């Protein structure tokens, strides 16, 4: 672990020093040239990116990578997944080590301004607090003097101390580098509270907790955490491709196009569907891709709703509600600008 951290640190110094200028060429050409998309993901976050028993990456973030690979390269499997720690991830994008970071990364001004660009949010999350039910706590305001387990190198660390400071409560943090160790410390009772994004807490509760029913996620939401893919600053074409691939998945849900019926939908009379699937218009070529980019992405991973349900929604162990992540037509925040 320590080695990896130093590796990341060295990568910053060396890569920015030596190869920084060599990576200036358009990302799209580089990906097509090597025939593979380099995608950075979380090393293990159930529902977002987590290797299954066969070693295949599953989750909402992994599927985002697949959709982009299908749109750009025509094959959703031409991806090299790189598991990254919270500290390594931003440097990995900045240095060009990966083309796309889909690793539950919160969109903030500081990050956006410092050499990164954010694609549309794929999951609207918020930071929450999980406590054992045996503690008898029902609100975060009762947590004065509590010990809180938190992972190092996340916005969570700062939100936590901001929230306790605002509410004039004291707390003691236990900050650990690896998520596994944070979980272990919490379930061992080292901490009264564990904090992370609510989706991550739900994932931990569903898959790691010895008895999921013994733990309660408190109603307070400490922060806004819009999670989305990240690309390097300075390659607008590549950013557009990632952005519109995600919008295509959202638009597909709105238009009822699924992985199963996308072939039939090619014959749909709706001009919006025809433009999206490349039957008409030149949407793909405008992005530097071919006409079938969105068709292939949808065919490979399904629309946004399918991705959500399969990985974090009712069809998954996490059983999260759509909530803010419902389509705008259903009172959520998922809204794709017109594809025309």
């Amino acid at each position, binding site marked *: *672990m*320590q080695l990896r*951290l130093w590796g*990341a*640190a060295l990568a*910053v*110094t060396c890569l*920015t*020093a*030596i190869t*920084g*200028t060599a990576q200036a060429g358009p990302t799209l050409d580089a990906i097509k040239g090597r025939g593979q998309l380099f995608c950075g993901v979380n090393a293990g976050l159930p529902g977002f990116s987590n290797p299954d028993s066969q070693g295949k990456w599953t989750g909402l973030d992994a599927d985002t990578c697949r959709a982009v690979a299908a749109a750009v390269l025509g094959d959703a499997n031409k991806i090299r997944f790189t598991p990254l720690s*919270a*500290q390594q991830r*931003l*440097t990995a994008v*900045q240095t060009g080590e990966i083309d796309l970071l889909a690793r539950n990364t919160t969109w903030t001004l*500081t*990050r956006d*301004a*410092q*050499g990164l660009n954010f694609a549309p949010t794929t999951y609207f999350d918020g930071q929450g607090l999980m406590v054992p039910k045996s*503690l008898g706590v029902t609100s975060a305001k009762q*947590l*004065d*003097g*509590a*010990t809180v*387990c938190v992972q*190092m*190198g*996340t916005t969570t*660390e*700062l939100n*936590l*101390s*901001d929230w*306790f*400071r605002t509410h004039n409560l004291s*707390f*003691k*943090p*236990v*900050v*650990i*580098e*690896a998520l596994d*160790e944070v979980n*272990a*410390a919490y379930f*061992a*009772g*080292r901490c*009264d509270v564990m904090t992370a994004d609510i989706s991550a807490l739900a994932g931990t509760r569903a898959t790691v907790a010895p008895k999921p029913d013994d733990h309660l996620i408190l109603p307070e939401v400490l922060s806004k955490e819009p999670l989305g893919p990240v690309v390097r*600053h*300075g390659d607008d074409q590549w950013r557009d491709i990632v952005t519109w691939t995600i919008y295509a998945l959202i638009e597909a849900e709105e238009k009822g196009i699924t992985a199963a019926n996308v072939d039939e939908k090619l014959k749909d009379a709706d001009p919006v569907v025809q433009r999206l699937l490349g039957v008409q218009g030149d949407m793909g070529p405008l992005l530097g891709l071919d006409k079938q980019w969105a068709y292939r992405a949808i065919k490979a991973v399904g629309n946004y709703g399918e991705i959500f349900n399969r990985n974090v929604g009712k069809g998954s162990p996490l059983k999260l509600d759509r909530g803010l992540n419902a389509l705008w037509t259903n009172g959520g925040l998922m809204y794709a600008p017109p594809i025309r």
Partner: protein
Amino acid sequence: MQLSDKTVNKPGAPRARHLTLSLNNPTIRAILWQIGLGLVVILAGWYLAGNTMANLARLSIASGFGFLDRESGVQIGESLIATGPRDSYGDIFIVGLLNTLKVSGVGIVLATILGVLLGMARLSSNWLVARFAATYVEAVRNVPLLLQLFIWYALLTEGLPGPRQAEPLIPGVDIFLSNRGLKFPAPADDPVWAWVAVLFAVGVLATLAISAWNRKRQLSTGQRLPMTPIGLGLILGLPLAFLALSGGGAMDVPVLQGFNFRGGMTLSPEFAALLFGLTLYTAAFIGEIVRSGILAVPKGQTEAATALGLSRSTAMRLVILPQALRVIIPPTTSQFLNLTKNSSLAVAIGYPDFVAVANTAINQTGQAVEGVLSIMIVYLVISLALSAFMNWYNRRVALVER
């Protein structure tokens, strides 16, 4: 170089001209090579630094150490000084540095004591003791330290009860051991404790003075006073007697309140796990160094000491160890440095050492180059200071022998 001067200078030719101008002169060539190499190193450094700065600017990553003055907003779990989210990044760096020094300092002292005992135990004539020490050394030094830290941390957090279930360790005394750490009463703000501290210092100074006088007396008369009881009486007896007479000072006692104990002093599980891991691991190496040092002293020295009528322990203390120290000190210095650097594994088990704090700062500010540079400078300074001290001590020990 003087030799080559001679070969170049032809007889009769003026000596100075050859030395200043000729490229055939190896001395001149050597100097030119040195200058050339120096320039290449400087230019390479200049290029790397300049390129890094340019790339950082291109990627809109801020550089410089200005962030040290900014408010961090981060709460640090444990600290030797008062700390809070209003502290600047510079302040929390100091908190982290002190935590690193705390665990390394205590670790070095404990590892040395345990290591010396282990080294002597391996040479013991008692079969059981020697075997036990050998097994310990082989088992502990062959398991990666990170794994040992995880084991200790898991034992301390999983094995101990929660704070609400914790019972006093000794009935009636407010010392609690739970998975939140060891809580024990600490002296509260009370003038009595100031006097106790003063008396303690007086006791230490008096003991030093008496033992110096005692040494002189022994050299001139051959008689010596029993220093151990005198020293103990002065250093511990004096403050304790005062405490008993004044009726004791106020104590800050840990009380269970809400989620945890409030008040008193805490030894956190993170600190304890790191300290145990570092101490036990390094002690195994120091034990082997001590053993090799003792074995390096010729057997004749032991026999001579025995012939003079010294007991085994006196011979060890006055004859063997002083000579063995010359062999022991240099490799032990490396072990001390290793222990200090290994303390950075703290990030894995949540002890807020310097690396952990710097990592947090890097993540919040995005200034990885400055953060990593700070880490490098801090460890370099600690290591250089430690080895300077150990080298000084080594010279002192070496001189005594001659």
